[in-house]
């Protein structure tokens, strides 16, 4: 997902869940900051670099792809952007090596998602924001894994967009991909950018949804394709429906985090809360545009009656740099870092407990002791 959903839509969801304007801003800022908090940024503000929640292009170019490097990459991407759906999935006649990667495939309504939301309950608004980012991405990035893997994340070149024509019939047209990094996706000409095929299993180019380009991040598009792990079954990805579910689930999750729901259950959504705005939200999601920031911002400002400032990655940097060492934990970024470490530790621990070493080894003390 992009800034339009992680920042502005999360603000709308937080407000609808009952948070006030300032709380909603803290939550949506944290949700969007997950896509910005790289090692480069953290080392720039002299913070703990192991709290990184993303990796920049330049960092990916320099990333090692030996076992240590792969574990490092998997810890970040599986914890924040591609939360695994079923760490104990089974599949007949598959090798252990294959299943280790297969079990990292992302999907919504997983046990790990429940743990993510529950982990945020005892935390700060920053923890809520991180949890909402993770939740939203489980819908957008479903069917891809947060580890470099050709056999999981590759696809065939057959992508078809499914849309409704003027007569109300569902028709499809082939999507054309190119590998030009400088050109934006051309929605009218149906020319989209994706990453080149790389035959090496552990190449960073085989991380996440690169082979599908930005299609998973566009809320308007419904398409079908053949994922490498799908055994020649085609998969239909209905983004308008998935994004609507993501939004409704975020509202439900944040109501739980505020204490208005007794528990957080899988496959449960706050449809009643969003009902008055459902049509408006649906129209935003289905509008064919590269970026829906303006539309979501307008909705958010209508809901709260307050202005939503544009996202500024450096907003809390000065605060963090100026406070002394003992007080850094209480600064905005300090709370974010603490929550990010908790999330990363939890997910890595669960991956390790399932017998999968792709997330590396985790010291239990890190979760129980130092972060409390």
């Amino acid at each position, binding site marked *: 997902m992009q800034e339009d959903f992680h920042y502005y839509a999360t603000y709308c969801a937080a407000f609808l869940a009952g948070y006030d304007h300032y709380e909603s801003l803290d939550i949506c800022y944290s949700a969007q900051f997950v896509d910005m908090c790289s090692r480069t940024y953290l080392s720039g503000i002299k913070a703990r670099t192991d709290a990184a929640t993303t990796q920049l292009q330049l960092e990916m170019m320099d990333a090692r792809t030996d076992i240590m490097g792969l574990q490092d990459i998997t810890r970040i991407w599986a914890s924040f952007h591609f939360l695994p759906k079923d760490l104990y999935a089974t599949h007949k006649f598959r090798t252990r090596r294959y299943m280790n990667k297969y079990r990292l495939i992302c999907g919504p309504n997983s046990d790990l998602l429940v743990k993510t939301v529950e982990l945020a309950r005892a935390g700060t608004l920053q923890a809520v924001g991180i949890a909402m980012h993770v939740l939203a991405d489980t819908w957008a990035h479903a069917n891809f894994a947060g580890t470099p893997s050709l056999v999981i994340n590759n696809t*065939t070149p057959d992508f078809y967009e499914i849309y409704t024509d003027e007569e109300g019939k569902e028709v499809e047209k082939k999507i054309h991909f190119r590998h030009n990094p400088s050109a934006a996706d051309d929605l009218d000409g149906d020319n989209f950018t994706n990453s080149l095929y790389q035959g090496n299993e552990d190449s960073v180019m085989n991380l996440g949804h690169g082979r599908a380009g930005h299609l998973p991040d566009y809320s308007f598009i419904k398409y079908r394709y*053949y994922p490498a792990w799908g*055994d*020649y*079954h*085609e998969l239909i990805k209905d983004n308008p429906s998935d994004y609507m579910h993501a939004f409704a689930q975020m509202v439900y999750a944040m109501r739980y985090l505020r204490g208005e729901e007794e528990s957080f259950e899988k496959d449960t959504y706050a449809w009643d809360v969003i009902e008055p705005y459902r049509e408006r939200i649906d129209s935003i999601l289905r509008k064919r545009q590269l970026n829906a920031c303006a539309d979501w911002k307008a909705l958010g400002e209508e809901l709260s009656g307050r202005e939503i400032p544009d996202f500024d990655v450096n907003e809390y940097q000065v605060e963090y740099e100026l406070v002394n060492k003992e007080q850094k934990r209480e600064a905005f970024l300090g709370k974010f870092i603490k929550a990010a470490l908790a999330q990363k530790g939890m997910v890595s621990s669960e991956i390790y407990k399932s017998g999968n070493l792709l997330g590396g080894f985790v010291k239990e003390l890190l979760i129980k002791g130092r972060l409390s």
Partner: protein
Amino acid sequence: MSQMDNIVEIKKNIKKCESNITITGIGVLVFGLWDVLKFIIQTAYGSIDIARELSEIELDSEIDPIIVPLITFFFILFVSLIIIVVHCFIGLRAIGYGRGIKRKWGFLFFAGIIAVMTAIGIPDYFVSRDGRFFIDDTVVAAALVDLTLCYILCDMIFSAIGLKIFSSKLEQEQ
């Protein structure tokens, strides 16, 4: 299994066959290059000796010295072109067939012929010029390559047959 499940399963098998045909088509194109290389090596370095063949032809007058290399050159060119054209025809048609662009069977006939000819030719690797059994690493390597080509061509043919069967089943189910 419900009818819906049946249709899904058949569609999956159709996609698998189409994918196989496309991949084997690419393999045949690559092997075209190998066949040309093998032929040129055999001609240039002795196992196919055109000069000797020509010298055994009885003519009324002596042949111009330039004729032999000229004939050799054109012979190599002509046969190389045929090899390339046949492999390109089979390979490109297979790729088109697998992608659903052109559903014509003709290329499978040629694929079968090449497969049979290649299979028949493999034992010849192990027979020296004087008719005795002969084996060394070069011969084994060359035989392995030809065996792989046979396998690819057979895979192509069986996948095409499978595609036909599953397509008929899909029509029946629908």
